[in-house]
């Protein structure tokens, strides 16, 4: 078990796509600082009357938008990139116990995205708050505990999306197919859900994986409109996605010929 985790971690950190994804996360983290700086400048130019009603997205917004995409790409590549080269056979010959191997692969991919998300969110949001300082922008003045909970759940949903895509990849075995499916879940299904007759439009939209984080712990200081699920229900839905996707993936991975 330890051998498998150590070997998969070795693999994940020596493949170029991982470096590219982490670089992308770092880039969006810097964008958080640019955004915060822009908000501060903008705020300074507003009249007192405008300030009373002005709204601005929170410091971590660039990461909140991009982390799910990075999670889909990394979660998909973690397994499917081996199928295109045939390396999955080399891997299975070295680690023939499939459930262990599956757990190791999912574990290192999920853990890496969790750490990358939490670290970038903490730095991006923290630095953003410092840049905006004591300006009374609502989304930059939330209580520290609420901000921390919000960032923690953004990180956890990022890891969950990584695992869901990973499970999907084990079933589909194709990088292009898995990334397309992941993007469809994040961006196409929410738009389609809004075409449903009420109240199903809102219910379905709220249950989609990309929309759960804000229903569990929303951005402090922002107005509502994040969905209709109670936090515990949203957590349960998120866990269900992970369990179902990993279960289907593990079954497919263990049963099919390599």
């Amino acid at each position: 078990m330890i051998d498998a985790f150590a070997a998969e971690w070795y693999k994940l950190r020596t493949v170029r796509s991982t470096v590219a994804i982490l670089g992308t996360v770092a880039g969006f983290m810097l964008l958080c600082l640019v955004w915060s700086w822009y908000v501060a400048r903008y705020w300074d130019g507003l009249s007192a009357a405008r300030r009373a009603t002005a709204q601005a997205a929170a410091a971590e917004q660039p990461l909140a938008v991009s982390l799910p995409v990075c999670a889909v790409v990394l979660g998909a590549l973690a397994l499917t990139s081996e199928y295109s080269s045939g390396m999955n056979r080399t891997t299975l010959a070295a680690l023939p116990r499939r459930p262990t191997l599956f757990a190791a692969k999912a574990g290192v991919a999920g853990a890496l995205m969790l750490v990358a998300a939490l670290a970038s969110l903490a730095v991006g949001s923290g630095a953003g708050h410092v840049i905006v300082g004591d300006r009374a922008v609502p989304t930059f003045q939330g209580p520290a505990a609420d901000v921390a909970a919000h960032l923690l759940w953004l990180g956890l949903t990022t890891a969950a999306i990584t695992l869901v895509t990973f499970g999907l990849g084990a079933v589909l075995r194709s990088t292009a197919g898995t990334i397309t499916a992941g993007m469809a879940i994040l961006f196409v299904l929410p738009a389609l859900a809004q075409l449903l007759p009420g109240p199903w439009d809102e219910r379905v939209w709220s249950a989609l994986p990309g929309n759960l984080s804000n229903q569990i712990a929303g951005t402090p200081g922002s107005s509502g409109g994040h969905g209709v699920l109670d936090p515990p229900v949203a957590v349960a839905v998120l866990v269900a996605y992970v369990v179902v996707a990993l279960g289907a993936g593990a079954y497919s991975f263990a049963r099919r010929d390599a």
Partner: protein
Amino acid sequence: MIEVRELTKRYGGTTAVDHLSFVVRPGTVTGFLGPNGAGKSTTMRVLLGLDKATSGAALVNGDRYTALRRPMREVGALLDAGAVQGGRRAFDHLGWLARSNGIGARRVTEVLEQVGLAGVARKRVGGFSLGMRQRLGIAAALLGDPGVLMFDEPVNGLDPDGVRWIRELMRALAADGRTVLISSHLMSEMELTADRLVIIGRGRLIADTSVRELADRFRRGVLVRSPRPAELTAALTAAGGAVEPMPDGAVTVTGLDVAAIGDMAAARGIPLYEVTSHSASLEEAYMELTADSTEFGAPLERQAS
């Protein structure tokens, strides 16, 4: 030791391996021969636990491969030299493999030196030639210092120097007492490398034999031409040879070699115009054995419409 027992593997309606049984023993190089599509790679994939057998068993040292805790220490295998991720450096490719089976990093350096890739250890595998990838795949197989080695078409893409290097490596590994199985569709290569041959066609066993036995089996006798065939036939039959007349007056003799036939004719004063040993080459023997089982045979003659 490798044991394949009544192994059958079907993919949908296609039977790739059909009740195949053979044993590969330590201390010898065993050639695993068959035309394209005969089931060699499928058998190796089942041996490595990559594909599941439909029925029967494929065992390594008496166990199923998937039951081995650190399999690379018992079995080294090279199935497909292209099965690497190009972005990774050679050292790291072997590095994660070593880590997966609890093998130290020093061993990675050792095998890289052994296969002649020490100089490119820090280069990305994507830039490697097919020959370099074969060497990297062999390095991976040797990593755990295993007692059983399996190579699928190891000489593919190698230059003559590389082919000779592989041949000597395989012989040296067998001389250490290891079990070495090499698949190939080239008899000419196996003739120089292997001691034993397992020949399959359409998923079935055709021959499980030593190289020498196969050569003997396809010795077709000696063609003898003489102006006095009747007298010669009588003399050779008396000496224990089997004589078969040919349509052009010559005879084919089996059971006696060229020297014995020449001596006997000289002793009786029978003139000989031709004495030709007629043994088939192993290549011909192989072609004959597998003639019925090539999957994609081209018709030799095409009838005019």
